[in-house]
C-alpha cells in the first residue's frame, strides 16, 4: 500500500489521461449535480462528489451504439460489411465500489455463458479502473445489504481510501503498481492495512444513521422470491404502481437489455444500432397476431425484480443482480425502486410469519 496526498489526485488523473480517455465524476456547471462523464480536463474530476446520478454503464454499453455497418447495392448485387472498431482505451477514475461491482455483474453476463458479447468485450478490454472507497455512505445507499460496498474487493487497478489529507493507495494489478511508481508514491508502512480496515468499519457503522433513504434486507427476500413464496397479489400490487417509464433500467448499473435496429442513412449505408431497452415496456415481448406472452404489467415488473433478486445473478453467481446504489428508488415515479420492493416483500414475510 502507498500514501498519496489528496492534492496529488489531479496528477493521477493527468497521468492516466496520457494513455486513456478519461471518465469520472464531475459536477454539472449550472446545477452542481454529480454525473459520471467523459472529461477532457483531468482537473474536472471530483473525487469527493456524491454518487453520480448515472452509473458508469454507458462507458462499456453506450446508450446507442453502432455495432456494424454495411452497404447493399441491389443493382450490382454486392454487399460490403464493416465491423466497427472505434473503441479507445479508457480510464475510469473515482468509481464507487457499488458501480465497480455493477461492471463486474455486466462482465459476468456479457463475457460469460455460451457466447461472448464482442462489442462489450471491445469496450472492456483496454481499461484502467481507479475505485474510490466510500468513507461515509450517501443517504440512498444500501451496498452493505448487497455485499458490494462500501469498499471494493476486486476488479480494480487502484483503490483509494480517504484518510485525512491523504489517500491510502492500493494497487490491484501490475498496471496499478506501475502508476504508483510513476507518481513517485511513498510506501504506507505496516500499519496501513489496519488503518484502512478501521476506516471502512467506521463507514459501515454509519449506514444506520446516515443511509436512511433505503433499507434492503436482500438475502432473506431473495430466498423467498426464488422459492416462489411471494403470492401473486403482492406482485400485482407492485406492478400496479409501475408507469412503464423505463427509468429504473436506464439508471441501473447492472441492467443490460438492449434492442437492435438497422438504420438507413442517406448515403446508402445502413447502420446496425443497438440501444438500451427495458423489460418494463409492453412492446418488449410483443409478437405477431397481438400475442403478448407478458402482457400484464405485473409480469413485466416481476421480470426486473426476478432478474435482480433471483434469476440471472443469484442463481448462477450466488449474489444479487443489485449492487445497492439506490438509483432506481430515486428515479421511480411509482415508488417501486428495488429497496422499496424488498421492503414490501419483507413486510409480507413478517406478516406470514406472525400468522
Amino acid at each position, binding site marked *: 500500500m502507498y500514501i498519496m496526498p489528496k492534492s496529488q489526485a489531479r496528477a493521477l488523473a493527468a497521468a492516466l489521461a496520457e494513455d486513456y480517455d478519461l471518465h469520472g465524476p464531475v459536477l454539472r456547471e449550472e446545477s452542481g449535480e454529480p454525473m459520471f462523464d467523459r472529461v477532457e480536463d483531468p482537473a474536472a474530476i471530483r473525487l469527493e462528489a456524491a454518487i453520480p446520478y448515472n452509473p458508469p454503464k454507458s462507458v462499456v454499453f453506450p446508450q446507442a451504439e453502432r455495432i*456494424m455497418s*454495411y452497404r*447493399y447495392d*441491389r443493382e450490382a*448485387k454486392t*454487399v460490403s*460489411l464493416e*465491423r466497427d472498431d472505434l473503441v479507445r482505451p479508457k480510464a475510469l477514475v473515482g468509481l464507487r465500489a457499488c458501480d465497480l461491482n455493477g461492471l463486474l455483474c455486466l462482465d459476468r*453476463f*456479457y463475457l460469460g*455463458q*455460451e*457466447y*461472448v*458479447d*464482442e*462489442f462489450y468485450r471491445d469496450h472492456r478490454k483496454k481499461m484502467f479502473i481507479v475505485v474510490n472507497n466510500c468513507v461515509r455512505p450517501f443517504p440512498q445507499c444500501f451496498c452493505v445489504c448487497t455485499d458490494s460496498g462500501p469498499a471494493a474487493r476486486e476488479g480494480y487497478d487502484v483503490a483509494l481510501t480517504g484518510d485525512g489529507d491523504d489517500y491510502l493507495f492500493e494497487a490491484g494489478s501490475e498496471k496499478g503498481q506501475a502508476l504508483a511508481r510513476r507518481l513517485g508514491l511513498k510506501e504506507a508502512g505496516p500499519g496501513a492495512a489496519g488503518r484502512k480496515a478501521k476506516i471502512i468499519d467506521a463507514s459501515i457503522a454509519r449506514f444506520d444513521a446516515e443511509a436512511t433513504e433505503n433499507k434492503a434486507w436482500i438475502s432473506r427476500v431473495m430466498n423467498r422470491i426464488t422459492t416462489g413464496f411471494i403470492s401473486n397479489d403482492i406482485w400485482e400490487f407492485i406492478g400496479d404502481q409501475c408507469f412503464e417509464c423505463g427509468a429504473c433500467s436506464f439508471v441501473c448499473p447492472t441492467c*443490460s*437489455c*438492449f*434492442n*437492435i*435496429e*438497422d438504420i*438507413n442513412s442517406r448515403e446508402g449505408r*445502413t447502420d446496425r444500432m*443497438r440501444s438500451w*431497452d427495458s*423489460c418494463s415496456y409492453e412492446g*418488449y*415481448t*410483443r*409478437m*405477431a*397476431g397481438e*400475442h403478448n*406472452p*407478458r*402482457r400484464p404489467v405485473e*409480469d413485466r415488473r416481476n*421480470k426486473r425484480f*426476478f432478474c435482480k433478486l*433471483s*434469476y*440471472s445473478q443469484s*442463481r448462477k453467481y450466488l449474489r444479487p443482480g443489485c449492487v445497492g446504489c439506490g438509483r432506481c428508488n430515486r428515479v421511480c415515479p411509482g415508488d417501486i425502486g428495488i429497496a422499496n420492493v424488498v421492503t414490501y416483500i419483507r413486510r409480507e414475510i413478517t406478516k406470514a410469519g406472525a400468522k
Partner: protein
Amino acid sequence: MSGANAGAIVTVPETAVIDEIRDEIEDVRTFYFSFENPEAARAFRARSGQFVMCTVYGAGEFAVSLPFSPEDDRPHLSVRQVGKVTRALHELRPGDKIGLRGPFGNGFPFESIKGKNVIYVAGGIGLIPLRSSIVHVLQHRQDFGRIILIYGSKSSQELMYRDMIEKWKATEGFETYFTIDRPEPGWTGPVGFVHTLVAPAKVPVENTVAFVCGPPLMFNSVIKELLAAGIKDEAIMSTLERHMKCGIGKCQHCAIGRTLVCTDGPVYTYKQIKTLGEQI
C-alpha cells in the same frame, strides 16, 4: 467458443445468394439460398430444430427456423410476411442477397428418441420448424416405430409443403391426418381444429414422443389432448417462439422465466414449459 454451437456465425452475418423462390401458401414463400463464401457453406452445420438470424439488407434482422435437413435437402427458409423485415424479404428476387448468422439454439434430441413412435402435431406454419425433423426421421425409417403427422390449417389453401407431404406419404408406415377449420367445397377430410384429430389418430402411448408446433392457442388444446391420451409431460416437445434480437443470450428479449429461448431453447419439453412460470 465451445459446446454445441461451435462454429456458429455469431456477430457479423455471412452473405448468401437467393437462388430460387417458391410460393407456398398465401403470404408464405420459400427461399432457397447458398452461401457466397464456400468456407462458410462448409462450416455451416445445423441440427434439426435450430434457427438462424436472417438479415434483409437495408431492413433488419429476424429469427427463422431451418426447415431443411442438413444431410439431404437444399438449404432454404420458409417465411410468412408479417411485418417490416419479412415484407422486405418477400420483395427480393432470385439473385438478391441476404445475411445469415447462426445456427443457434439447442435443436431436437434425436439420439434419445431412437426406437420410439413419433407423433408430429402442427398448426399452420408450425409445420416449418418440424419439417427437418420429419425428413430426418423418414430418412432413418428403420430406427423408429409408428410415424404420425397430424396437421391442421385454416383452409385447404393454407396447408404448407403439400407436394412434399405427398412424397413423404410414399414412405411405408407414414400416417397422416389433415384437418381444416371450416367446411369448404371439395374438401372431404375432417373439419375442425387440429387437436380434434388426436383421439381419432389413436396415438400410441408407450414408447412415444410428440412434437407440437403452432400458434399458442392451438398449442394448449393439443397438449391437453395428448396428455388425455396418456402421453407423458417429458415426452412432449415443442419449439417456442419469442421476438428475438441478438440470438445469443444477451438482449433478453426472448426470456421466459429464467430461461432464454435463443440459447436454452427453442426446443422445450412440456415438462420444462410447465415450470417456466410465464405464459406461452
